[in-house]
Each structure stands twice: as structure tokens, then as C-alpha cells.
């Protein structure tokens, strides 16, 4: 049953050094505040899992929190490169990072298998690509038709962290807008945290909403604006200017560190 706790308490309780951690949110509802709290608490050696490691994972990688990255698209959407991600892979700064990369279809099916507690999932994919030789994918034969299909291993993160618009006092969570792969990530994970914009008396049913019952979650943390510069549809707007500005901030190692110290780590000092 989900306990409603503060974000620092939730992260302290649920995220440990060396964990595999999936912070999901497909462009929408990215749990920035929770990722920043993980950095403030100094977690290290994480296996970071995420279909689209964008600015948040650029920050976490740049701070040296990750030993490994599992992903399918590492770009600043609509802007360009993720400079900290590139620096880590190209130059091992601030530390070498191991990578395992997939296609979106592969990652989505890995989460599906994890949510269903099956060891693998089948898809028509990876065929003919160089990806197949550089990642963890196997091929199996259909027992009915003999067709050769890709089999991807289930993802079962130690912890999943997602952001949603709201929860009720029992920890039932409701999100709406682009649903991404958050529900699957939560169900695939051993432990889970949902940060929310607001706690409400009652979840009013909404079009396009995904509801996650509180009894499959470990913690819910009230975290207004917790997805900025990403957004929470209907509550906050995507800060597209910030995504553009991130390109300049993140190009230079020192500028990056200074920005993080001021805007992310600095917050812990005034607590």
C-alpha cells in the first residue's frame, strides 16, 4: 500500500547505491524533481533505465551517478545532442559508462514482459541491424509458423519512479495525457515511487486517464511542478526554452557543474 511521504523520505527509503532505477515519462511527466533528489542524496553506481534519456539523465550521468545506462534514444528532443551523455560515452567523463541500447519497440516490450512477470517478450524487430550484435537480444522460432522473431529479456528495475498529476489519500494515482510506459515501468519494478502535482480528496475520472491503484505502489510524494521542465498536462507547461538553453549549459563541463551546483544540489543546502 502506498505511503504518502515527503520526496526526500521516499528517495531515502527506496533508492540505494547500485540499484537499477527506471525514471520514466515519454517526453511528458518526466520525474525531474525525484531525479534531482536522487542526486542530492548522493546515490552512485546506478543502472539507469529509460527509453528516452533526455535532459534529466544527461544531468544524472554528468554528475557521475550512473555506472550503466539502458536506453533506446538519447537525444534532447527537437534540439540535438545530449552533451553529458556523449561526453560520458565518448570520453568517459566524469566516469566511464556501460551502455545497453535497444530500439523503442524492444524497450517497450521489455517493460511489458516485466509488468507481466514473464521472462521475455516477442516482437518482430532488430532484424538486419547492427544493434542485434551490440545488445542483449535473442531470436526464437514461432512454434506454429517457424518464423524467426526477436525475444527481448524482461526489464525488472529495482525501483521505478514516475510522475503523475494527482493521487488521493489512499495513494491511488491518476495521470492523463501521453501515458508513455509509466504504468508498465511501475508494475515491472520491485519498488515504486510516484511523485504527484497534487493530493486530492477524490480522483475525478478523466478522459484518457491511467489509474494506478495505491496498493501496487510503495510511496507517493507530493511534488508540485515535479516534472519541470517537462510538463504535467493540464497543470504545467513544457518549458521548451529550457530544453533549448540546456544545449549551451551542458556543452561545457564546468558550466554544467556550476549550473547543477546552483540549481540542483544547492537546494539541499537551504533545506
Amino acid at each position, binding site marked *: 500500500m502506498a505511503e504518502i511521504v515527503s520526496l526526500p523520505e521516499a528517495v531515502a527509503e527506496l533508492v540505494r547505491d547500485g540499484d537499477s532505477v527506471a525514471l520514466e515519462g515519454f517526453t511528458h511527466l518526466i520525474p525531474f524533481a525525484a531525479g534531482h533528489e536522487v542526486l542530492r542524496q548522493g546515490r552512485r553506481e546506478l543502472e539507469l533505465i529509460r527509453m528516452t534519456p533526455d535532459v534529466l539523465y544527461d544531468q544524472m550521468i554528468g554528475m557521475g551517478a550512473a555506472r550503466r545506462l539502458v536506453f533506446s534514444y538519447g537525444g534532447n528532443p527537437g534540439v540535438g545532442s545530449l552533451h553529458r551523455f556523449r561526453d560520458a560515452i565518448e570520453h568517459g567523463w566524469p566516469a566511464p559508462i556501460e551502455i545497453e541500447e535497444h530500439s523503442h519497440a524492444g524497450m517497450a516490450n521489455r517493460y511489458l514482459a516485466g509488468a507481466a512477470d514473464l521472462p521475455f517478450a516477442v516482437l518482430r524487430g532488430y532484424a538486419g541491424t547492427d*544493434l542485434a550484435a551490440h545488445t542483449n537480444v535473442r531470436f526464437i522460432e514461432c512454434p506454429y509458423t517457424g518464423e524467426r522473431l526477436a525475444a527481448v529479456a524482461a526489464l525488472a528495475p529495482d525501483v521505478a519512479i514516475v510522475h503523475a498529476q494527482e493521487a488521493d489519500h489512499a495513494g491511488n494515482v491518476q495521470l492523463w495525457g501521453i501515458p508513455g510506459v509509466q504504468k508498465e515501468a511501475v508494475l515491472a519494478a520491485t519498488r515504486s515511487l510516484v511523485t504527484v502535482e497534487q493530493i486530492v480528496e477524490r480522483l475525478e475520472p478523466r478522459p484518457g486517464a491511467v489509474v494506478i491503484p495505491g496498493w501496487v505502489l510503495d510511496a507517493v510524494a507530493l511534488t508540485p511542478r515535479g516534472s519541470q521542465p517537462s510538463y504535467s498536462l493540464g497543470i504545467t507547461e513544457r518549458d521548451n526554452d529550457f*530544453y533549448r538553453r540546456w544545449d549551451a549549459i551542458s556543452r561545457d563541463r564546468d558550466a554544467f557543474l556550476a549550473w547543477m551546483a546552483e540549481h540542483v544540489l544547492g537546494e539541499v543546502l537551504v533545506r
Partner: protein
Amino acid sequence: MSEASADEVQTIVAARALAHTKTVFIGVGRPSTAAILARMVHNPSLVLVYESGAIGAKPFHIPLSIGDGELAATADAVVSVPEMFNDWIGPGRIEVAFLSAAQIDRFANLNSTVIGDYDHPVTRLPGAGGAPEIAANCERVIVVIPHSRRTFVERLDFVTTVGYADGPGARQRLGMRGRGPTAVITDLGVLEPDPSSAQLVLTQLHEGVTVENARDATGWDLAVAEQLSVTEPPSDTELDALRELLAR
């Protein structure tokens, strides 16, 4: 009105390619601009599908990301990422996919993973995203890509996405459902696969571009069609609409 730039011509030609298309899968950038332009000018009922889950999105503005709120808000249906790939892209329900890449070869294979060696990259690119399965399974692919020796290479550093692999019949052997790339639209002209060799042939040049320009910008010995056509110049309607769209 000022004359159309090469980039504008490329976008307008890409939009025209969707004049009779029912459904198109698009990412962000020029392909997205072209598809929105197609809805404005040629094909108001064109269904835009974004991998973020928005099916039938009707954006008024060019989205910066595939997850911009306007896409979900205007869509006919919004689905999860697993559903998008398993129930919509995988079974080949989408007619055309617009793709781009950092490198393309003569068989229209694409690289968006890495420049240099995979384990010791010169430039690490974003990676595959949805492209491999989109290109494998949508009915056909149109590549929208800048034309230069940096992008049009003799040999890809990494095959992220299969066009025609190593030639005719390869897609079928790989179990792919879609026909593969039917056009590569660049800022210089249009290339199409030769049906017998599955290699790209220059079939169309934008106004003012020469065969030599295209050959110079191509990292392999570019074949040229016997009947080389010239791109119909952008109409005022097209150019007006594109500029108005970009200014929104």
C-alpha cells in the same frame, strides 16, 4: 515573396509526397513540418501518428518534441508506447513513415547510432529510437535528409535501420512487412530505389541544382535516371503556408 530556400523546397517536396497518403508516422524536425504542411495545403484528412502515442494529432504549431501537449490534446486517440509499437507500427497499419538519419548508404540503410567505432565512438548519436521497427513494418518509408558527403556515405558506420540491406530480396529474407524506402528527399533532389538493384538512383533535381552538385554531395558513385525530372517550383500557396507555419 522571396525565393524559396533549398530547405524550404525540401520541406515542400516532402509535403507533396503525402498528398494522397492516408496515414503518416513522423518524428520531430523537418518531417513533422512537412506533414503539417501537407495537412494545410494538400491533404487535410491526413492522419499524423507520433511515436509518443498520438494518433490523428492536428497540431497548429510545429511541435518541439514528439510529446508536446498539443499533440495529445488534438489527437483522435492517444495510446501507450507499448501499444503504439505492438498494435499500430508492428502490424503495418501506418502507410508512410518519414525518417531521417545522420548517414544513409546506397541501399537506403540508415545510421543514427554512432560515427566511428561503436565501442570508441568519434560521435555518439542518439540511437535507434523507433526507427528500426518503423522502417521494417510501415507500408513504405520516405527518408528526408540533408544531401552531403557527410550523410551520403559509401559505408555506414553502423546499420541502425534497414532500407534494402544488401540488395533485392533482403527485406523479405529478414521478415520485414513493409516495402522499404520508396523515396529519399533531400535539399538537392529526390532519389528512388532502382527496382532491380534496390540501389538509390537520382530521379529528380530541385530547380537550379545540377547533376554535378548532387554527385559532389554523394559519397558513392551516384546513378542518375535516364528521365531526370525537375522539381515543380514551390507555389505561392505552398511557400506562404510553410512560412506562416514556421512563424506560428
